[in-house]
């Protein structure tokens, strides 16, 4: 049975030499410490990627601006995209997964702790390798060596002919290494979920977060492999004389696109599934109701995982596929909207009839719900291939995917931070600062990404370092740029809240939110061994059963 242990008194930690602390963290195999390191690493790159975005938005604040040269701009959008996907979103999600999955299944650690540490450190190396390109590459017109080929690195722009020097190689190698780290963590999560659940926790009693991380990990294994293969082929082209993608010698540019997007589309589902996971845990707690339709949520999650590998060429509607080919991918892309919509409806069903508490995690979750709804709808619009023939590579697409990634994923991540920070540190984050963070970020987000849809509909093309004066896009671009600054300020408030609360936040206790899953049954922060006694569960919400012995979930499952 899960027990509520008495909280440890918050005393000053005894002073240890800094080298001992550093050594402990560098050599740790504890999933909680590795999780926290992933999260800290991702936050660092979030700031870096954000600065890259702001520099671009200064350049674009008015037409024919000369703040940045074309080369620097092109490097920035390449680095911004690569950083945000591979060195912010993936690590932060793996970080939360690492921290939470063992705790939520009542386990002591992940299945393979040393693989866990290896995966983390190889990812760290990959990130720093990419950024080393700014000073380490050569051959790019004096602008340093950072890659400037876009985060999809389309062939033949990446061939030796069009990308001399080593800038593209930094992109290729760093992503290849990051992919190895991701595969390691994915294997670890699957093995942990399959074999380390506590007694009584059948698959249908696992928290939805655990289900979603398992599906996400399966998707990582399927998706990263083609990317790694393509990158090896690219290196062979560049250095050993092969011609896979070398169109001047009969190779195929479209082949690279297929390889990349077979990775790239499941990748975005890799990013969104853990976000669904957070919402599945947070929305019920702040609505004070069990998740509506657990079996449907499981089915939808698994369904999304499977269908997501069949939609990739909706990124290629304009490359000249046959009408039959285009039509197939339209159908698949629309089909995936059905389970995704079901999830939104089930969250609605969870809130309905509940008692909604507007604490900061819930505020961010509500932002997620509306914004993800809009993002999904613009996605359906883009799935209509003829509509995409107009809007592909315009700012409409940029608006769509930022709505998903910032409006959906980042908002949900903020919710997850405020929700699980007390468990990780033993302190509550400041509610007041959290509300400032929320409102500022909401305003900045909408100021930036709402107008972006309109300039896209008006014909503005993406990945352009400037735009003509006579198109009338200057005012909206100015608003977009100002919104970026507001988001930056909001992020600073958030970072300050994280740091300040660590020292001055109210003590949290084991269960500050009155929640129902196993992680809330142990101390905050949990001891190294997680649970003093391995728990036994009899339902999906073991703590609900403890708190409501007269009406336990076991009666309804």
């Amino acid at each position: 049975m899960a027990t509520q242990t008495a909280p440890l008194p918050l005393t000053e930690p005894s002073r240890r030499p800094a080298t001992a602390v550093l050594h402990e963290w560098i050599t740790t195999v504890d999933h909680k410490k590795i999780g926290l390191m992933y999260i800290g690493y991702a936050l660092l790159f979030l700031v870096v990627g954000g600065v890259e975005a702001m520099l671009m938005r200064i350049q674009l604040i008015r037409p024919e601006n000369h703040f940045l040269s074309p080369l620097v701009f092109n490097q920035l959008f390449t680095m911004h995209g690569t950083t945000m996907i591979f060195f912010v979103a993936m690590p932060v999600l793996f970080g939360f997964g690492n921290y939470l999955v063992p705790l939520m299944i009542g386990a002591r650690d992940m299945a393979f702790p040393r693989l866990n540490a290896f995966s983390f450190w190889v990812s760290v190396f990959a990130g720093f390798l990419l950024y080393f390109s700014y000073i380490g590459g050569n051959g790019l017109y004096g602008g340093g060596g950072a890659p400037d080929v876009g985060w999809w690195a389309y062939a033949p722009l990446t061939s030796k002919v069009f990308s001399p020097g080593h800038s593209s190689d930094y992109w290729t190698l760093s992503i290849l290494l990051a992919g190895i780290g991701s595969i390691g963590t994915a294997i670890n999560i699957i093995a942990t979920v399959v074999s380390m659940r506590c007694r009584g926790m059948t698959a249908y009693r696992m928290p939805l977060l655990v289900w979603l991380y398992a599906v996400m990990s399966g998707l990582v294994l399927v998706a990263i492999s083609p990317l790694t293969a393509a990158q090896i082929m690219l290196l062979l082209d560049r250095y050993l004389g092969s011609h896979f993608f070398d169109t001047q010698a009969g190779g195929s540019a479209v082949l690279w696109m297929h390889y990349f997007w077979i990775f790239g589309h499941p990748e975005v589902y890799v990013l969104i599934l853990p976000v669904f996971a957070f919402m599945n845990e947070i929305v019920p707690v702040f609505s004070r109701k069990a998740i509506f339709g657990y079996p449907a949520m499981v089915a939808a999650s698994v369904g999304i995982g499977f269908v997501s590998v069949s939609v990739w060429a909706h990124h290629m509607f304009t490359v000249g596929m046959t009408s039959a080919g285009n039509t197939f991918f339209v159908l698949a892309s629309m089909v995936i909207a059905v389970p995704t919509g079901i999830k939104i409806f089930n969250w609605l069903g969870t809130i309905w009839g509940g008692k909604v508490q507007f604490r900061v995690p819930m505020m961010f979750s509500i932002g997620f719900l509306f914004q993800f709804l809009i993002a999904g709808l613009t996605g359906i619009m883009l799935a209509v291939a003829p509509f995409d023939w107009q809007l592909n590579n315009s700012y409409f697409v940029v608006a769509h995917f930022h709505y998903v990634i910032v409006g959906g994923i980042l908002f949900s991540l903020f919710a997850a931070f405020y929700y699980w920070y007390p468990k990780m540190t033993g302190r509550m984050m400041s509610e007041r600062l959290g509300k400032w963070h929320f409102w500022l970020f909401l305003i900045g987000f909408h100021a930036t990404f709402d107008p972006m849809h309109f300039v896209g509909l008006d014909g503005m093309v993406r990945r352009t370092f400037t735009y003509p004066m006579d198109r009338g896009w200057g005012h909206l671009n100015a608003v977009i740029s100002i919104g970026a600054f507001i988001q930056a300020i909001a992020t600073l408030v958030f970072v300050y809240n994280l740091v300040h609360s660590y020292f001055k936040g109210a003590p949290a206790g084991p269960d500050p939110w009155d929640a129902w899953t196993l992680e809330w049954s142990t101390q905050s922060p949990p001891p190294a061994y997680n649970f003093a006694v391995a728990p036994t569960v009899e339902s999906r919400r073991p703590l609900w059963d403890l708190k409501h012995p007269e009406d336990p979930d076991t009666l309804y499952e």
Partner: protein
Amino acid sequence: MSLETIVSSTLSPHMLSAFAGFVLPPGSTSIFNPAGTPAHSIFSLSMLVLSITGGVFVVVGGLLLYALLRYRHRTNDPGSNEEPQQIYGSTQIELSWTVIPVLIVVMLFLATARIIFATQDAPKPQNALDVTVVGHQFWWEFRYPKFGVVTANELHIPASDAQTHTPAYLSMISADTDHSFWVPRLAGKTDVIPNRVNTMWIDADTPGLYLGQCAQYCGLEHAKMLLRVYAQTPADFAAWVAHQQQPALEDPSVAEGRAVFEHNACISCHTVRGTVATGTFGPDLTHLASRDTIASGSVPLTRDNLHEFIANPASFKPGVLMPPMHLNDHDLDLVTDYLMTLK
């Protein structure tokens, strides 16, 4: 009457343009301002899609908003400390909100498939104009194989009218990296890819100038690879073709400038038909002065701009593949004057 037509005539394009006009001036590149058959059919389809997605947003968003307000925790209610009734699901409700989206998807899919096939597999009429488009870093080459005309960056096509539909069929390939041909008011875009020929067709309802640009990141000056499509009446188009078919005009007053041009490396990259210049790496200059712009649409063609471009192409487009020619001022003036006579 198709579903799209019903919807699009209800939600009149004027409404949307008017709204867009609030936010943006009349769109010279707006997809909601169609002026060609493919753009029109995409517009109708997009009206259908927007109505459906808009409807879904209003319904679902409205329900969410309602639920959040109606079921908010009120601390002054009696029983506010009790948990609400736990409801774990409802098969009927969940089934209905699965079936209804499936039906919407089926309907949307069928409407979409129809437009895909109608556009991509449209039978090619006898009177269609054939144009070969070659994408370069960072300019467009246009060849009219049946007329023996080669030009750059400014595409001329005959406009359709109520009686005759005259599409231009574009066969497109790239000479280097990936590009994409996008003129929003006329049609959706099709990528221009090396080692692969893609075809698309455009037509224009009315004579006029239609703007666009390269829509696939192709390198340093992707942002400045603009497109200009001139739709002309059939008579004007025929006159334009006839003029373009002529070899370069010979104006004896610029003979010295012509000599400078022909004795420098210019001729290795550029063609001036009827002279020794037969290079194909850069744009065909035979009728350069008949064009409105240079640097792929990014600056107007004036003597001053041309002068500056020849002296240092990077001043307009850093990273453009034409090197600075290092001519002395005298030769530079002569060459510029010569090129300005190539109407």
